[in-house]
Protein backbone atom coordinates (compact mmCIF):
# COMPACT_ATOMS: atom_id res chain seq x y z
CA UNK A 1 0.00 0.00 0.00
CA UNK A 2 2.76 2.45 0.98
CA UNK A 3 6.42 2.06 0.19
CA UNK A 4 9.05 4.62 1.18
CA UNK A 5 12.56 4.35 -0.18
CA UNK A 6 15.50 6.50 0.87
CA UNK A 7 13.23 9.29 2.06
CA UNK A 8 14.85 12.46 3.35
CA UNK A 9 13.01 15.58 4.36
CA UNK A 10 14.75 18.87 4.89
CA UNK A 11 12.49 21.82 5.66
CA UNK A 12 13.23 25.20 4.07
CA UNK A 13 14.53 26.46 7.43
CA UNK A 14 17.32 23.86 7.26
CA UNK A 15 15.91 21.35 9.78
CA UNK A 16 16.32 17.76 8.62
CA UNK A 17 13.22 15.98 9.89
CA UNK A 18 13.67 12.65 8.09
CA UNK A 19 17.01 11.12 7.34
CA UNK A 20 16.77 8.00 5.16
CA UNK A 21 13.47 6.25 5.77
CA UNK A 22 12.84 2.84 4.17
CA UNK A 23 9.57 1.16 5.03
CA UNK A 24 6.66 -0.82 3.59
CA UNK A 25 3.15 -0.73 5.01
CA UNK A 26 0.72 -3.26 3.57
CA UNK A 27 -2.96 -3.09 2.96
CA UNK A 28 -4.97 -3.88 6.08
CA UNK A 29 -2.14 -3.30 8.57
CA UNK A 30 -2.48 -1.38 11.82
CA UNK A 31 0.72 0.53 12.57
CA UNK A 32 1.77 2.62 15.58
CA UNK A 33 4.40 5.27 14.98
CA UNK A 34 6.26 6.09 18.21
CA UNK A 35 9.27 8.13 19.23
CA UNK A 36 10.24 11.23 21.20
CA UNK A 37 8.93 14.70 20.37
CA UNK A 38 10.62 16.21 17.35
CA UNK A 39 11.70 12.77 16.06
CA UNK A 40 9.88 13.25 12.76
CA UNK A 41 6.64 11.30 13.30
CA UNK A 42 4.37 14.04 12.03
CA UNK A 43 6.59 14.66 9.03
CA UNK A 44 6.52 10.93 8.26
CA UNK A 45 2.73 11.03 8.34
CA UNK A 46 2.47 14.23 6.28
CA UNK A 47 4.30 12.51 3.43
CA UNK A 48 1.46 10.01 3.16
CA UNK A 49 -1.19 12.58 2.24
CA UNK A 50 1.18 14.80 0.32
CA UNK A 51 1.05 17.65 2.84
CA UNK A 52 4.83 17.56 2.46
CA UNK A 53 6.99 16.27 -0.38
CA UNK A 54 10.19 14.34 0.31
CA UNK A 55 13.39 16.26 -0.51
CA UNK A 56 14.92 12.98 -1.64
CA UNK A 57 13.59 9.47 -2.21
CA UNK A 58 10.19 8.11 -3.17
CA UNK A 59 6.85 7.64 -1.42
CA UNK A 60 4.82 5.22 -3.50
CA UNK A 61 1.17 4.70 -2.62
CA UNK A 62 -0.82 2.16 -4.63
CA UNK A 63 1.72 2.46 -7.42
CA UNK A 64 1.78 6.28 -7.54
CA UNK A 65 4.89 8.20 -6.48
CA UNK A 66 3.71 11.09 -4.32
CA UNK A 67 7.08 12.83 -4.72
CA UNK A 68 6.31 13.55 -8.36
CA UNK A 69 2.51 13.59 -8.21
CA UNK A 70 1.05 16.56 -10.09
CA UNK A 71 -0.48 19.28 -7.92
CA UNK A 72 -3.88 18.96 -9.53
CA UNK A 73 -3.99 15.23 -8.75
CA UNK A 74 -3.37 15.72 -5.02
CA UNK A 75 -7.12 16.14 -4.24
CA UNK A 76 -7.85 12.73 -5.72
CA UNK A 77 -5.08 11.15 -3.64
CA UNK A 78 -6.58 12.71 -0.51
CA UNK A 79 -9.99 11.26 -1.23
CA UNK A 80 -8.44 7.87 -0.56
CA UNK A 81 -6.73 8.98 2.67
CA UNK A 82 -8.57 9.95 5.84
CA UNK A 83 -6.65 12.18 8.25
CA UNK A 84 -7.28 12.67 11.97
CA UNK A 85 -5.50 15.22 14.17
CA UNK A 86 -4.95 15.84 17.83
CA UNK A 87 -6.96 19.08 17.60
CA UNK A 88 -9.95 17.58 15.71
CA UNK A 89 -10.12 20.37 13.11
CA UNK A 90 -13.91 20.64 13.18
CA UNK A 91 -15.74 23.71 11.92
CA UNK A 92 -17.31 25.35 14.98
CA UNK A 93 -20.34 26.84 13.24
CA UNK A 94 -21.44 23.61 11.58
CA UNK A 95 -23.36 20.87 13.34
CA UNK A 96 -21.93 17.40 13.77
CA UNK A 97 -23.93 16.22 10.77
CA UNK A 98 -22.81 19.16 8.65
CA UNK A 99 -19.17 18.74 9.61
CA UNK A 100 -19.19 15.20 8.28
CA UNK A 101 -21.33 16.00 5.25
CA UNK A 102 -18.87 18.79 4.44
CA UNK A 103 -16.23 16.24 3.45
CA UNK A 104 -18.62 14.76 0.90
CA UNK A 105 -20.04 18.05 -0.33
CA UNK A 106 -16.65 19.39 -1.31
CA UNK A 107 -15.99 16.33 -3.45
CA UNK A 108 -19.42 16.87 -4.99
CA UNK A 109 -21.12 13.71 -3.83
CA UNK A 110 -24.86 13.53 -4.52
CA UNK A 111 -27.11 14.75 -1.64
CA UNK A 112 -28.84 11.38 -1.36
CA UNK A 113 -25.59 9.48 -0.91
CA UNK A 114 -24.34 12.12 1.52
CA UNK A 115 -27.29 11.57 3.83
CA UNK A 116 -26.92 7.79 3.78
CA UNK A 117 -23.15 7.78 4.25
CA UNK A 118 -23.19 10.33 7.07
CA UNK A 119 -25.84 8.44 9.01
CA UNK A 120 -23.92 5.19 8.53
CA UNK A 121 -20.70 6.64 9.84
CA UNK A 122 -22.44 8.40 12.76
CA UNK A 123 -23.80 4.99 13.70
CA UNK A 124 -20.28 3.54 13.61
CA UNK A 125 -18.92 6.18 16.02
CA UNK A 126 -22.11 5.93 18.11
CA UNK A 127 -23.08 9.60 17.88
CA UNK A 128 -26.27 9.39 15.84
CA UNK A 129 -28.17 11.01 18.70
CA UNK A 130 -25.90 14.08 18.60
CA UNK A 131 -26.11 14.79 14.86
CA UNK A 132 -27.61 18.25 15.45
CA UNK A 133 -25.16 19.35 18.12
CA UNK A 134 -22.41 21.90 17.55
CA UNK A 135 -18.82 20.72 18.20
CA UNK A 136 -18.42 22.86 21.33
CA UNK A 137 -21.47 21.16 22.85
CA UNK A 138 -19.57 17.86 22.79
CA UNK A 139 -16.78 16.41 24.94
CA UNK A 140 -13.26 16.11 23.52
CA UNK A 141 -13.67 12.39 22.93
CA UNK A 142 -16.94 12.94 21.11
CA UNK A 143 -15.37 15.63 18.96
CA UNK A 144 -12.57 13.27 18.03
CA UNK A 145 -15.09 10.61 17.09
CA UNK A 146 -16.72 13.13 14.76
CA UNK A 147 -13.39 13.94 13.21
CA UNK A 148 -12.77 10.20 12.67
CA UNK A 149 -16.23 9.88 11.19
CA UNK A 150 -15.38 12.68 8.76
CA UNK A 151 -12.09 10.98 7.88
CA UNK A 152 -13.73 7.67 7.01
CA UNK A 153 -17.04 8.79 5.54
CA UNK A 154 -15.61 8.59 2.04
CA UNK A 155 -14.36 5.03 2.74
CA UNK A 156 -10.66 5.68 2.20
CA UNK A 157 -8.22 2.81 1.94
CA UNK A 158 -5.92 4.45 4.48
CA UNK A 159 -6.62 6.33 7.71
CA UNK A 160 -3.77 8.19 9.35
CA UNK A 161 -4.04 9.69 12.78
CA UNK A 162 -1.45 12.02 14.28
CA UNK A 163 -1.68 11.66 18.06
CA UNK A 164 -5.47 11.36 17.98
CA UNK A 165 -5.63 10.79 21.74
CA UNK A 166 -3.12 13.49 22.66
CA UNK A 167 -5.78 15.75 24.15
CA UNK A 168 -7.92 13.05 25.73
CA UNK A 169 -8.06 11.27 29.09
CA UNK A 170 -7.21 7.51 29.12
CA UNK A 171 -10.79 6.19 29.11
CA UNK A 172 -11.81 8.39 26.22
CA UNK A 173 -8.59 7.48 24.42
CA UNK A 174 -9.62 3.84 24.48
CA UNK A 175 -12.93 4.69 22.81
CA UNK A 176 -11.00 6.31 19.98
CA UNK A 177 -8.56 3.44 19.56
CA UNK A 178 -11.38 0.90 19.54
CA UNK A 179 -13.06 2.80 16.72
CA UNK A 180 -9.81 2.81 14.78
CA UNK A 181 -9.43 -0.89 15.38
CA UNK A 182 -12.99 -1.46 14.20
CA UNK A 183 -12.24 0.46 11.01
CA UNK A 184 -9.07 -1.58 10.57
CA UNK A 185 -10.93 -4.86 11.04
CA UNK A 186 -13.13 -3.86 8.08
CA UNK A 187 -10.03 -3.76 5.88
CA UNK A 188 -8.81 -0.16 6.14
CA UNK A 189 -5.10 0.41 6.72
CA UNK A 190 -4.49 2.49 9.87
CA UNK A 191 -1.33 4.43 10.73
CA UNK A 192 -1.37 6.14 14.11
CA UNK A 193 1.33 8.25 15.74
CA UNK A 194 1.00 8.10 19.50
CA UNK A 195 2.64 8.80 22.84
CA UNK A 196 0.41 6.39 24.73
CA UNK A 197 2.47 3.60 26.22
CA UNK A 198 -0.64 1.95 27.65
CA UNK A 199 -2.38 1.66 24.31
CA UNK A 200 0.63 0.40 22.38
CA UNK A 201 1.49 -2.20 25.01
CA UNK A 202 -2.08 -3.39 25.49
CA UNK A 203 -3.45 -3.49 21.98
CA UNK A 204 -0.50 -5.17 20.33
CA UNK A 205 0.17 -4.08 16.73
CA UNK A 206 3.13 -3.30 14.49
CA UNK A 207 5.31 -0.57 16.02
CA UNK A 208 7.60 1.70 14.02
CA UNK A 209 9.90 3.76 16.26
CA UNK A 210 11.44 6.90 14.81
CA UNK A 211 14.34 8.79 16.38
CA UNK A 212 16.13 11.76 14.82
CA UNK A 213 14.50 11.09 11.48
CA UNK A 214 15.43 7.42 11.25
CA UNK A 215 13.51 4.22 11.87
CA UNK A 216 15.29 2.62 14.82
CA UNK A 217 12.86 -0.24 15.42
CA UNK A 218 10.12 -1.94 13.42
CA UNK A 219 8.39 -4.87 15.13
CA UNK A 220 5.17 -6.77 14.65
CA UNK A 221 3.28 -6.90 17.96
CA UNK A 222 5.89 -4.53 19.39
CA UNK A 223 6.22 -2.61 22.64
CA UNK A 224 6.08 1.16 23.18
CA UNK A 225 9.67 1.03 24.42
CA UNK A 226 9.95 4.47 26.03
CA UNK A 227 9.26 5.65 29.55
CA UNK A 228 5.89 7.36 29.14
Amino acid at each position, binding site marked *: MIEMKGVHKKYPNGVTALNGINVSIHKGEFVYVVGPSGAGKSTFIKLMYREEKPSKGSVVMNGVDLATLKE*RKVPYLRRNVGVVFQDFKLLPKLTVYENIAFALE*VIEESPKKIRRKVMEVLDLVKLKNKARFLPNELSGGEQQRISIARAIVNRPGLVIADEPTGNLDPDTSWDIVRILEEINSRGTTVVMATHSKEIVNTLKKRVIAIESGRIVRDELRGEYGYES
Partner: protein
Amino acid sequence: MTLASVGAVTTTLILVGLFLVLMLNLNQVAENVEEDVEIKVLIDLTAKETDINKLENEIRNIPQVSMLQFSSKEEELKQLIESMGEEGEAFELFEQDNPLNDAFIVKTEDPIDTFKVAEQIMKFDNVGEVVYAEDVIRKLFEFNQYARYVGLGFIIALVLTAAFLVSNTIKITIMARSKEIGIMKLVGATNSFIRWPFFIEGLLMGILGSILPIALILGGYYYLYENLQDRIQFPFVELLPYHPFAFQLSFLLLAIGAFIGVWGSVMSVRKFLKV
Protein backbone atom coordinates in the same frame (compact mmCIF):
# COMPACT_ATOMS: atom_id res chain seq x y z
CA MET B 1 -14.13 46.82 3.03
CA THR B 2 -16.54 45.24 0.57
CA LEU B 3 -18.19 48.63 0.20
CA ALA B 4 -14.81 50.21 -0.45
CA SER B 5 -14.09 47.70 -3.19
CA VAL B 6 -17.45 48.11 -4.87
CA GLY B 7 -16.92 51.86 -4.53
CA ALA B 8 -13.52 51.60 -6.20
CA VAL B 9 -15.04 49.68 -9.09
CA THR B 10 -17.84 52.27 -9.33
CA THR B 11 -15.44 55.22 -9.32
CA THR B 12 -13.22 53.55 -11.89
CA LEU B 13 -16.10 52.78 -14.19
CA ILE B 14 -17.56 56.29 -13.92
CA LEU B 15 -14.22 57.79 -14.90
CA VAL B 16 -13.71 55.21 -17.62
CA GLY B 17 -17.22 55.92 -18.88
CA LEU B 18 -16.72 59.70 -18.95
CA PHE B 19 -13.42 59.27 -20.65
CA LEU B 20 -14.83 56.94 -23.26
CA VAL B 21 -17.76 59.25 -24.02
CA LEU B 22 -15.31 62.06 -24.63
CA MET B 23 -12.76 59.98 -26.44
CA LEU B 24 -15.08 58.11 -28.77
CA ASN B 25 -16.95 61.26 -29.73
CA LEU B 26 -13.69 63.05 -30.38
CA ASN B 27 -12.61 60.08 -32.42
CA GLN B 28 -15.77 60.33 -34.44
CA VAL B 29 -15.10 64.01 -35.15
CA ALA B 30 -11.54 63.25 -36.12
CA GLU B 31 -12.73 60.51 -38.43
CA ASN B 32 -15.24 62.83 -40.07
CA VAL B 33 -12.46 65.31 -40.65
CA GLU B 34 -9.97 62.71 -41.78
CA GLU B 35 -12.24 61.53 -44.54
CA ASP B 36 -12.27 65.03 -45.89
CA VAL B 37 -8.64 65.93 -45.75
CA GLU B 38 -7.06 66.54 -49.11
CA ILE B 39 -4.15 68.51 -50.52
CA LYS B 40 -4.74 70.82 -53.44
CA VAL B 41 -1.62 71.46 -55.49
CA LEU B 42 -2.01 74.56 -57.66
CA ILE B 43 0.11 74.26 -60.79
CA ASP B 44 2.06 77.29 -62.03
CA LEU B 45 0.29 79.05 -64.86
CA THR B 46 3.52 78.90 -66.86
CA ALA B 47 3.88 75.12 -66.63
CA LYS B 48 3.81 73.25 -69.91
CA GLU B 49 2.23 69.87 -70.58
CA THR B 50 5.54 68.04 -70.04
CA ASP B 51 6.16 69.91 -66.78
CA ILE B 52 2.75 68.87 -65.54
CA ASN B 53 3.41 65.24 -66.45
CA LYS B 54 6.74 65.39 -64.67
CA LEU B 55 5.11 66.87 -61.56
CA GLU B 56 2.41 64.22 -61.64
CA ASN B 57 5.07 61.51 -61.64
CA GLU B 58 6.95 63.14 -58.82
CA ILE B 59 3.86 63.31 -56.65
CA ARG B 60 2.84 59.77 -57.53
CA ASN B 61 6.24 58.58 -56.37
CA ILE B 62 5.76 59.85 -52.84
CA PRO B 63 5.04 56.60 -50.97
CA GLN B 64 2.29 57.96 -48.71
CA VAL B 65 0.17 59.24 -51.60
CA SER B 66 -2.90 57.09 -52.14
CA MET B 67 -4.85 59.17 -54.62
CA LEU B 68 -3.87 61.67 -57.27
CA GLN B 69 -6.35 63.39 -59.49
CA PHE B 70 -5.96 66.14 -62.05
CA SER B 71 -8.45 68.96 -61.94
CA SER B 72 -8.37 71.45 -64.81
CA LYS B 73 -8.90 75.13 -64.16
CA GLU B 74 -12.31 74.88 -65.83
CA GLU B 75 -13.35 72.23 -63.33
CA GLU B 76 -11.93 74.29 -60.52
CA LEU B 77 -13.97 77.29 -61.57
CA LYS B 78 -17.11 75.24 -61.88
CA GLN B 79 -16.62 73.95 -58.37
CA LEU B 80 -15.94 77.39 -57.03
CA ILE B 81 -19.11 78.74 -58.63
CA GLU B 82 -21.15 75.87 -57.26
CA SER B 83 -19.76 76.27 -53.79
CA MET B 84 -20.68 79.96 -53.73
CA GLY B 85 -24.34 79.42 -54.58
CA GLU B 86 -26.17 82.58 -55.73
CA GLU B 87 -23.19 84.81 -55.31
CA GLY B 88 -21.17 82.45 -57.44
CA GLU B 89 -23.00 83.61 -60.51
CA ALA B 90 -20.81 86.66 -60.54
CA PHE B 91 -17.84 84.47 -61.23
CA GLU B 92 -19.38 83.20 -64.42
CA LEU B 93 -17.87 86.30 -66.00
CA PHE B 94 -14.50 84.63 -65.63
CA GLU B 95 -15.45 81.72 -67.80
CA GLN B 96 -13.93 83.47 -70.79
CA ASP B 97 -10.75 84.41 -69.06
CA ASN B 98 -10.22 81.91 -66.23
CA PRO B 99 -7.80 83.27 -63.60
CA LEU B 100 -7.56 79.93 -61.74
CA ASN B 101 -4.82 77.35 -61.91
CA ASP B 102 -4.92 73.77 -63.00
CA ALA B 103 -4.54 71.60 -59.91
CA PHE B 104 -3.80 68.16 -58.56
CA ILE B 105 -5.98 66.80 -55.77
CA VAL B 106 -3.86 64.57 -53.56
CA LYS B 107 -4.94 62.28 -50.72
CA THR B 108 -2.65 60.36 -48.46
CA GLU B 109 -3.06 56.84 -47.17
CA ASP B 110 -3.06 58.06 -43.58
CA PRO B 111 -4.37 61.61 -43.03
CA ILE B 112 -1.62 62.12 -40.45
CA ASP B 113 0.87 62.28 -43.34
CA THR B 114 -0.92 65.18 -45.01
CA PHE B 115 1.46 67.77 -43.68
CA LYS B 116 4.63 65.89 -44.52
CA VAL B 117 3.45 65.19 -48.04
CA ALA B 118 2.31 68.76 -48.57
CA GLU B 119 5.69 70.08 -47.54
CA GLN B 120 7.42 67.70 -49.92
CA ILE B 121 5.23 68.71 -52.83
CA MET B 122 5.90 72.35 -52.09
CA LYS B 123 9.52 71.82 -53.06
CA PHE B 124 8.77 70.48 -56.53
CA ASP B 125 9.08 72.66 -59.65
CA ASN B 126 6.05 74.29 -61.19
CA VAL B 127 4.11 74.20 -57.93
CA GLY B 128 2.39 77.51 -57.37
CA GLU B 129 0.79 76.90 -54.05
CA VAL B 130 -0.18 73.98 -51.82
CA VAL B 131 -3.45 74.28 -49.99
CA TYR B 132 -4.35 71.80 -47.27
CA ALA B 133 -6.01 71.29 -43.93
CA GLU B 134 -5.34 74.03 -41.52
CA ASP B 135 -3.52 74.11 -38.23
CA VAL B 136 -6.67 73.51 -36.26
CA ILE B 137 -7.10 70.14 -37.82
CA ARG B 138 -3.51 69.30 -37.25
CA LYS B 139 -3.93 70.17 -33.58
CA LEU B 140 -7.02 68.04 -33.42
CA PHE B 141 -5.08 65.09 -34.77
CA GLU B 142 -2.30 65.59 -32.32
CA PHE B 143 -4.61 66.09 -29.39
CA ASN B 144 -6.58 63.04 -30.31
CA GLN B 145 -3.48 60.91 -30.54
CA TYR B 146 -2.10 62.23 -27.28
CA ALA B 147 -5.40 61.90 -25.45
CA ARG B 148 -5.65 58.29 -26.55
CA TYR B 149 -2.36 57.37 -24.88
CA VAL B 150 -2.90 59.40 -21.73
CA GLY B 151 -6.43 58.05 -21.44
CA LEU B 152 -5.37 54.48 -21.95
CA GLY B 153 -2.65 54.79 -19.30
CA PHE B 154 -5.14 56.41 -16.98
CA ILE B 155 -7.69 53.65 -17.49
CA ILE B 156 -5.15 50.91 -16.93
CA ALA B 157 -3.99 52.52 -13.69
CA LEU B 158 -7.57 52.81 -12.46
CA VAL B 159 -8.45 49.25 -13.39
CA LEU B 160 -5.33 48.00 -11.61
CA THR B 161 -6.16 49.95 -8.48
CA ALA B 162 -9.71 48.69 -8.39
CA ALA B 163 -8.64 45.09 -9.02
CA PHE B 164 -6.10 45.44 -6.22
CA LEU B 165 -8.76 46.67 -3.78
CA VAL B 166 -11.11 43.87 -4.77
CA SER B 167 -8.33 41.33 -4.31
CA ASN B 168 -7.62 42.70 -0.84
CA THR B 169 -11.25 42.39 0.15
CA ILE B 170 -11.36 38.83 -1.06
CA LYS B 171 -8.13 38.10 0.76
CA ILE B 172 -9.89 39.06 3.99
CA THR B 173 -12.74 36.65 3.26
CA ILE B 174 -10.21 33.96 2.50
CA MET B 175 -8.38 34.58 5.77
CA ALA B 176 -11.65 34.37 7.65
CA ARG B 177 -12.33 31.05 5.97
CA SER B 178 -8.79 29.69 6.06
CA LYS B 179 -9.62 26.90 8.51
CA GLU B 180 -12.51 25.83 6.34
CA ILE B 181 -10.34 25.90 3.23
CA GLY B 182 -7.65 23.89 5.00
CA ILE B 183 -10.19 21.19 5.82
CA MET B 184 -11.54 21.29 2.27
CA LYS B 185 -8.06 20.60 0.96
CA LEU B 186 -7.54 17.87 3.51
CA VAL B 187 -10.61 15.94 2.43
CA GLY B 188 -9.78 16.26 -1.25
CA ALA B 189 -11.60 19.31 -2.64
CA THR B 190 -10.13 20.42 -5.95
CA ASN B 191 -8.69 23.90 -6.25
CA SER B 192 -11.36 24.92 -8.72
CA PHE B 193 -14.05 23.84 -6.29
CA ILE B 194 -12.45 25.96 -3.56
CA ARG B 195 -11.93 28.85 -5.92
CA TRP B 196 -15.38 29.33 -7.38
CA PRO B 197 -17.09 31.06 -4.42
CA PHE B 198 -14.32 33.67 -4.43
CA PHE B 199 -14.58 33.92 -8.16
CA ILE B 200 -18.32 34.58 -7.78
CA GLU B 201 -17.62 37.08 -4.99
CA GLY B 202 -15.25 39.01 -7.24
CA LEU B 203 -17.63 38.86 -10.17
CA LEU B 204 -20.47 40.09 -7.97
CA MET B 205 -18.42 43.02 -6.69
CA GLY B 206 -17.54 43.94 -10.25
CA ILE B 207 -21.14 43.75 -11.42
CA LEU B 208 -22.46 45.63 -8.39
CA GLY B 209 -19.84 48.28 -9.01
CA SER B 210 -21.02 48.77 -12.57
CA ILE B 211 -24.68 49.46 -11.78
CA LEU B 212 -24.32 53.13 -10.88
CA PRO B 213 -21.93 53.97 -13.74
CA ILE B 214 -24.27 52.32 -16.26
CA ALA B 215 -27.25 54.21 -14.87
CA LEU B 216 -25.26 57.44 -15.15
CA ILE B 217 -24.25 56.71 -18.72
CA LEU B 218 -27.74 55.74 -19.84
CA GLY B 219 -29.29 58.78 -18.14
CA GLY B 220 -26.51 61.28 -18.62
CA TYR B 221 -25.79 60.56 -22.24
CA TYR B 222 -29.48 60.70 -23.05
CA TYR B 223 -29.69 64.14 -21.49
CA LEU B 224 -26.53 65.26 -23.28
CA TYR B 225 -27.63 63.90 -26.61
CA GLU B 226 -31.13 65.36 -26.46
CA ASN B 227 -29.91 68.80 -25.43
CA LEU B 228 -26.74 69.20 -27.44
CA GLN B 229 -27.15 67.33 -30.67
CA ASP B 230 -29.35 69.95 -32.37
CA ARG B 231 -27.41 72.94 -31.12
CA ILE B 232 -24.02 71.97 -32.37
CA GLN B 233 -23.17 74.16 -35.33
CA PHE B 234 -19.60 73.20 -36.10
CA PRO B 235 -18.85 71.24 -39.23
CA PHE B 236 -17.87 67.62 -38.70
CA VAL B 237 -19.02 67.72 -35.08
CA GLU B 238 -21.90 65.45 -34.13
CA LEU B 239 -22.53 63.26 -31.10
CA LEU B 240 -22.59 59.51 -31.50
CA PRO B 241 -26.26 58.51 -31.55
CA TYR B 242 -27.70 57.48 -28.18
CA HIS B 243 -28.78 54.19 -29.64
CA PRO B 244 -26.65 52.09 -29.91
CA PHE B 245 -23.71 54.03 -28.43
CA ALA B 246 -24.98 54.34 -24.84
CA PHE B 247 -25.91 50.67 -24.77
CA GLN B 248 -22.64 49.50 -26.23
CA LEU B 249 -20.81 51.62 -23.70
CA SER B 250 -22.92 50.24 -20.83
CA PHE B 251 -22.15 46.75 -21.92
CA LEU B 252 -18.47 47.58 -22.11
CA LEU B 253 -18.54 49.03 -18.57
CA LEU B 254 -20.25 45.89 -17.30
CA ALA B 255 -17.57 43.80 -18.97
CA ILE B 256 -14.77 45.91 -17.48
CA GLY B 257 -16.42 45.70 -14.05
CA ALA B 258 -16.71 41.93 -14.29
CA PHE B 259 -13.11 41.74 -15.48
CA ILE B 260 -11.88 43.81 -12.53
CA GLY B 261 -13.78 41.62 -10.07
CA VAL B 262 -12.70 38.32 -11.55
CA TRP B 263 -9.12 39.42 -11.91
CA GLY B 264 -9.06 40.67 -8.31
CA SER B 265 -10.32 37.32 -7.08
CA VAL B 266 -7.87 35.36 -9.21
CA MET B 267 -4.98 37.45 -7.86
CA SER B 268 -5.86 36.83 -4.23
CA VAL B 269 -6.82 33.18 -4.51
CA ARG B 270 -3.88 32.08 -6.62
CA LYS B 271 -1.32 32.66 -3.88
CA PHE B 272 -3.46 31.10 -1.23
CA LEU B 273 -4.02 27.78 -2.92
CA LYS B 274 -0.37 26.82 -3.25
CA VAL B 275 0.51 23.49 -1.53
